[in-house]
């Protein structure tokens, strides 16, 4: 039973109809998070991916910052600096923070406010910082990570956020990520979901952009038992959002996305791209809802949602929605669901490429619209992670390594 006073969404709620809700609504979200011990530290250290060149790193275990594995914060301190331009604060939440909303789509964010024990606040100064910031979440037990990211006017930052979990131990994460971009601030945010097969992952993103701000967002969902991503984006004058997401679901995984983008001021632009591959008995859903109010003149919206089905019982649900209340607007969307193109496959096979590699190559090409938006260091790491899923699509590092003969 869910130990919470909040009524959680059900399949009858329009924006939750494709999510796998049973496993998350039956959880005890009030359960205390596991403790940080030396055994855990050894396990987590082994899990951490290679550091990206020049990056500053923050590691969170079960929703709390681990100073021992994080840069810029000393043990026993709640404040620190990742770099000269970047301050961070770990705010201890003694009581539920913020009021509960009536919006059912914000219900998990409300739940997070009730149970999160710490909020990580990152504030970048106007001068900016060229170094990428890595935020690594290690899921364990039930946790409610809460992050607030503030970029003042003219600031720019590159953030890479990863969701990992401690082996195949069951976990449930309810993440809240609030982003405030000041006027003309620029944020490149790359997010990777790579949890264990027993991990339940729910996240709610609230993103506010000031005039002229730009958000370049890329999300890759590779593994978790079930994942649901809810995002609310509020545009301002001339602000811009490029939203790319890709999900590769297999087994019985369910990856569900709901993105509500509001254009209430002049000249805002949104480009949304989704590329999903559902294999075996998995289910993918992407619900991209774009609103333009009467004052959202000269808004420009483009949506391209594509799904590939690769399993006899795989399922894809896409909803490209436009809700427009003014005529000075340009909006278009396209959505497709289908299988691998037989002609393309035949072309590759006729050139002597084996069927498995040919399929992998085509799938790779299918998601490349999103993959190519990733920063280089991260892209290489993700390509490595995809080797198991798309064998033969790219040369493995071993294959790239020079042989003794070539060295001679």
């Amino acid at each position, binding site marked *: 039973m869910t130990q919470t006073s909040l009524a959680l969404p059900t399949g009858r709620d329009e924006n939750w109809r494709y999510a796998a809700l049973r496993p998350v609504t039956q959880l005890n979200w009030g359960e205390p998070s596991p403790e940080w011990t030396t055994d855990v530290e050894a396990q987590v250290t082994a899990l951490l991916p290679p550091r990206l060149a020049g990056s500053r790193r923050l590691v969170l275990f079960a929703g709390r910052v681990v100073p021992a594995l994080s840069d810029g914060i000393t043990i026993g301190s709640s404040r620190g600096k990742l770099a000269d331009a970047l301050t961070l604060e770990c705010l201890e939440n003694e009581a539920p923070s913020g009021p509960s909303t009536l919006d059912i789509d914000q219900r998990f964010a409300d739940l997070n406010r009730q149970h999160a024990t710490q909020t990580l606040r990152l504030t970048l100064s106007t001068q900016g910082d060229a170094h990428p910031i890595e935020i690594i979440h290690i899921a364990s037990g039930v946790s409610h990570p809460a992050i607030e990211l503030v970029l003042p006017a003219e600031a720019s930052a590159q953030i890479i956020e990863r969701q990992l979990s401690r082996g195949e131990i069951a976990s449930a994460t309810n993440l809240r990520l609030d982003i405030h971009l000041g006027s003309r601030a620029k944020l490149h945010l790359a997010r990777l979901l790579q949890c264990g097969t027993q991990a339940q992952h729910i996240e709610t993103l609230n993103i506010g952009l000031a005039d002229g701000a730009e958000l370049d967002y890329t999300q890759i969902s590779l593994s978790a038992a079930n994942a649901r991503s809810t995002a609310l984006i509020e545009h301002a004058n001339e602000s811009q959002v490029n939203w790319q997401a890709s999900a590769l679901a297999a087994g019985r995984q369910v990856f569900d996305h709901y993105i509500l983008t509001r254009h209430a001021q002049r000249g805002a632009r949104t480009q949304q791209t989704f590329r999903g591959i559902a294999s075996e008995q998995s289910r993918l859903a992407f619900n991209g809802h774009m609103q333009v109010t009467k004052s959202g003149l000269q808004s420009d919206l483009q949506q391209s949602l594509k799904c590939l089905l690769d399993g006899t019982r795989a399922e894809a649900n896409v909803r*490209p929605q436009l809700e427009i209340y003014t*005529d*000075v607007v340009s909006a278009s969307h396209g959505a497709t669901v289908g299988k691998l193109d037989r002609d393309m496959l035949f072309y590759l096979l006729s050139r002597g490429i084996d069927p498995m590699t040919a399929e992998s190559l085509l799938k790779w090409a299918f998601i490349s619209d999103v993959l190519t938006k990733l920063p280089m260091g991260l892209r290489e790491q993700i390509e490595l992670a995809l080797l198991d899923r798309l064998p033969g699509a790219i040369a493995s590092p071993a294959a790239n390594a020079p042989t003794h003969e070539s060295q001679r």
Partner: protein
Amino acid sequence: MTQNAELQDLVGKGYQHGFVTDIESESLPPGLNEDVVRHISRIKREPEFLTEWRLQALRHWFTLKEPQWAHVKVAPIDYQAISYYSAPKAKTDGPKSLDEVDPKLLETYEKLGVPLHERARLAGVAVDAVFDSVSVATTFKDKLEKAGVIFCSFSEAAQKHPALIEQYLGSVVPHTDNYYACLNSAVFSDGSFVYIPKGVRCPMELSTYFRINAANTGQFERTLIIADEGSHVSYLEGCTAPMRDENQLHAAVVELVALERAEIKYSTVQNWYPGDENGVGGIYNFVTKRGECRGARSKISWTQVETGSAITWKYPSCVLKGDDSIGEFYSVALANHCQQADTGTKMIHIGRNTRSTIVSKGISAGRGQNTYRGLVKILAGAEGARNFTQCDSLLMGGDCGAHTFPYVEVKNPSATIEHEASTSRISEDQLFYCLQRGISEEDAVNMIVNGFCKTVFKELPMEFAVEAQNLLAVSLEGAVG
């Protein structure tokens, strides 16, 4: 400024069919209960099974709540304040031929552009005219009977062909389907019934003209079309209502059944009274239309032009059960002044190699709100299913709204689904091009809007295509955004 003035002038042209016919009619007092349903059934001399079916629907309806999910704002409806039966007072049991029909009624249809006599002789289209709750005249019956085609009012069919009614009524839209279909199942008063026997190509187009006349009534007609194996029929539907300050409810149900290799083409030009420019009055058009392609290689095609009614809530759908069956939906929906339209389609692919096409064109002007809501669902067994959807919206003015809510649900990996949509206003370049060639602004906008709707209009039978173009012209000439 000139554009706005012209727009106001043209919009002010108003509704052309808003007159009231002063004709004696029999109506039931307002209110809905089992006695009312029994009374309707008794007037219609229906068989026992039908009365029971109606009562079952009514009992279920009392347990339901009005749906709230549509993107429309509906003022509360007092269902107990509506009269559920109104009919022109008959001198005898019913007209045996057009000569026995009240001349005032025939005059009404002449005014509406549905001259029953002339159409019968010249156009070669068989017409069933439904006035308030009852069918008043059906033309060309003899010729159709020779071909084995049954085309009559629903009441007549219930008396003469009860076996067909019992077999097919509610088999596509059961009374449990939704709130308004359930209400219709309980109180439907008349409508059209069509049966095309095996292998028969209906020798002419069939047409029904619906007219609401009396005040404080709702219209609840029910249409059932059965196309037996290898048959073909094209059916046209038109509708109008007087201008009144109160909202009137129209909750119809249309069921189509296409058996193996059968083809049904269903075209609608909906021109119910839309209310005035301030949103006062107008018809609430809450309609359930669904066709089932039961047999292999069958085809159902819906074409609709929605220009009227204050609120439209309508999703003509195809359930593609038979292998290789085809569903089509072509729609132009216009929302002007304070009109609200939430319309679209559902294509449910069940059989193998089923195909569907959806082309929807929405036009919003004034303070109109136009929503396309469409579901394409491919079930696990629908091997090789294909769908193509195109829904475009045209906005004219800064106070209107155009919304697109598609649902694509695919459970078979061999399916191919494509959906594309765009929202824009009339291109200033196109308008300028026309104007600098000496075409007036009104004509230019008319041309551009007609071009926008061309893919749908070409699916309409010729005379309906002309009517549809004229309707759009009346409402929208000069409406430059």
